[in-house]
C-alpha cells in the first residue's frame, strides 16, 4: 500500500481514539448535568435527606451530605496537609539523597497506589476498634488523611525539587541558614506546585467513598454534632440512591447529588489549574 495513504488511515484511527475519549467525558458528564440540573432548587441545599413513606431517604434535600463532605475536607486540610508538606520538605531538604530517604520515597510512591478500600480496612482496624473512635467523622477524616498523605508528599517533593539548586546555594552562600533558605526561598518558589497538589488531594478526598463505608457514614445521619458522630457524605449519598428500591424517586436525587459533587471537584481542579498557570508565568528559570 502507498506509504502516505497508510499513514493517513492510521492517523485517522488514532484521531478516532482521541475522539472516543472526549466522547466518554461528554456523554458521562452530559447525563449527570442534564438529569441533575433540573433537580437543583433551594430546598436541595437547605434540607436534610428525609424518608418517604416506605422509609427510603429519597425526600428532602442534600444539606447534611454536603456539610459532611466539607467537614471531611476540613479534617484532611488540618491533619494531612501540614504533616504531608512539612514532612516531605524534611525528607527532601534534610535527608536529601540518602539511601534511607530513597527507600522511604519508594514506599511512599507505592502507597500512593494502594486501593482506597485497603485504607478503609486500616481505618476500621486502627481507628474504629483499636483506638476506640467508633464509627465516626474523625475516624473517616483520619482515614482519608492517610489516603491522601502519600499523594501530598509526592507532589510536594516534585514542587520542591523543581526549584533550581543554584537558588539554595546562593542563599546559603550569603549566610542564610538552612531553615531561613527554606522559608524565604524554597517555599515561596514551590508554593504553586505544593498548593496545586494539596487542592487536588482535597478534591480526591471529597470524592472518595469506599473508606467511608467502613469508617462511619450512616444512612440517616444528619449534620454531625461532634467529631465522634456518624455523618453523611455526598458520594455515599449517591451510592445509597442507586441501592434504594424506590428508583423513580431515588434516581433524580442521585443525579442531583452527583452534579453538586462534580461541581465541587471540577471547581477545585480548575482553581488548581489556574494557580499552576499563573505561577508558571511568575517564576521562570
Amino acid at each position, binding site marked *: 500500500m502507498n506509504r502516505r495513504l497508510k499513514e493517513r488511515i492510521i*492517523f485517522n484511527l488514532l484521531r478516532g*481514539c482521541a475522539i472516543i475519549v472526549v466522547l466518554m467525558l461528554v456523554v458521562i458528564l452530559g447525563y449527570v448535568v442534564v438529569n441533575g440540573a433540573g433537580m437543583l432548587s433551594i430546598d436541595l441545599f437547605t434540607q436534610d435527606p428525609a424518608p418517604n413513606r416506605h422509609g427510603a431517604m429519597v425526600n428532602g434535600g442534600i444539606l447534611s451530605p454536603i456539610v459532611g463532605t466539607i467537614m471531611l475536607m476540613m479534617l484532611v486540610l488540618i491533619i494531612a496537609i501540614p504533616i504531608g508538606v512539612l514532612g516531605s520538605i*524534611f525528607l527532601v531538604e534534610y*535527608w536529601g539523597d540518602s539511601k534511607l530517604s530513597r527507600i522511604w520515597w519508594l514506599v511512599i510512591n507505592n502507597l500512593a497506589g494502594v486501593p482506597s478500600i485497603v485504607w478503609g*480496612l486500616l481505618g476500621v482496624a486502627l481507628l474504629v*476498634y483499636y483506638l476506640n473512635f467508633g464509627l465516626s467523622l474523625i475516624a473517616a477524616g483520619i482515614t482519608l488523611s492517610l489516603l491522601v498523605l502519600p499523594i501530598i508528599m509526592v507532589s510536594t517533593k516534585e514542587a520542591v525539587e523543581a526549584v533550581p539548586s543554584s537558588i539554595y546555594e546562593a542563599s546559603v552562600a550569603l549566610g542564610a541558614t538552612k531553615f531561613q533558605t527554606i522559608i524565604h526561598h524554597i517555599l515561596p518558589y514551590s508554593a504553586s506546585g505544593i498548593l496545586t497538589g494539596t487542592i487536588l488531594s482535597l478534591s480526591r478526598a471529597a470524592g472518595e467513598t469506599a473508606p467511608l463505608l467502613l469508617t462511619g457514614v450512616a444512612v440517616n445521619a444528619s449534620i454531625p454534632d461532634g467529631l465522634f458522630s456518624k455523618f453523611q457524605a455526598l458520594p455515599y449519598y449517591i451510592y445509597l440512591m442507586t441501592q434504594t428500591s424506590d428508583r423513580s424517586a431515588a434516581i433524580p436525587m442521585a443525579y442531583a447529588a452527583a452534579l453538586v459533587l462534580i461541581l465541587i471537584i471540577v471547581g477545585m481542579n480548575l482553581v488548581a489549574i489556574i494557580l499552576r498557570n499563573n505561577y508558571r508565568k511568575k517564576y521562570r528559570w
Partner: protein
Amino acid sequence: MAFKKKKSKLSVDALRENGARALLFACAFVSLITLGLVFIFLLGNAIPFFQANDLWAFLTGKVWSPFSDYPLYGVLPLLMGTILVSLVAAIIAIPIGIGCTVYLSEIADPKVKRILKPVIEVLAGVPSVVYGLFAALVLSNWIFDIFHPVARLNALNGALILSVMMIPILVSVAEEAMNSVPGSLREASLALGATKWETIRMVVIPASLPGIVAAVVLSVGRAVGETMAVIMATGSATQFTISILDSVRPITAALAIDVPESVAGSMQYYSLFAVGLLLFVITFSINLLADFVLARYKEAYN
C-alpha cells in the same frame, strides 16, 4: 559588648534552626510511621485467620460464604471477579489509551492538545461513584439491549466503566514517556526519508516502550483496586464464573460490602483482612513492577 550581642543572636538563630528542624522531622516521622501502620494492621488482623484456616484452601476454594452457618472462605470467586473485570477493561482501554496518547503527543496540533489535555484531567478527577452511577443507570441498559444478559448488572458493565477510568492514568503516564523522547531522534528519522507514521512506529514507540509498559501496568493496578464503580456496576453476586455476562463480586466489592456486616474480632472479620492483605499484595506488586520498569528506563536515558 558587640561580640556578646553577636553571640546571642547566633544562638537564637541556632535555637530556631534546631527547633524548625525538630518540627519538620516530627512531621516526616509521623507520616512515615502512619504509613507503616498499614502493613502492621493488615497483617495483624489477617494472622488470626491464617492460624485457624488453611492458606491453600483459602487460595483455591471456589465458595465464598463467610456469613453462612458453615462458613467457607474460598477466595477464588472474588479473585476471578477481579481478574475478569480488570482483564476485559484492560483489553478495551489499552488500545484506545495508547492510540489517544500517540495522537496527543505526536500528531495533534497545539490547539487540539489544549482541549484534549484538560479533558483527560477532568476524566481523572471525576469521582468513582459518579462512574458507578453512570454504569448502574445508563450503561447497564445499553448492555441489556444489546446482549440480553440474565444479570442486568454484570462483569461486562464493570469492565466497560473501568476501561473509561483507566484511560486518564494510562494516557498521562504514557504521554510523559513519549514526550521525553528527544526531538533529535524524530528529526533524524524524518531526514532519512521515513514518513511521520514510520517515525512514530519505529523510533518514538520503541524509545518510549518502557514508559508505555509502566503506564499499562499502573492503569491495571488502578482497575484491580477500584471499589465503588465496581460495586455499583457488577451486581455483586459471589459466584465463581468466567462469563462476562454474569454478575460477579470483585475483591474490593467484597471488602466494602462485608466488612460493615462483620463483628470485630470474629472469624469473618479476620477473613476479610486476609482478603485485604491479598489485594494489598497484588496491587503493591503491580506498583513495584511499574516502578522497576520506569527506573530501568530512566537509567537507559541518562
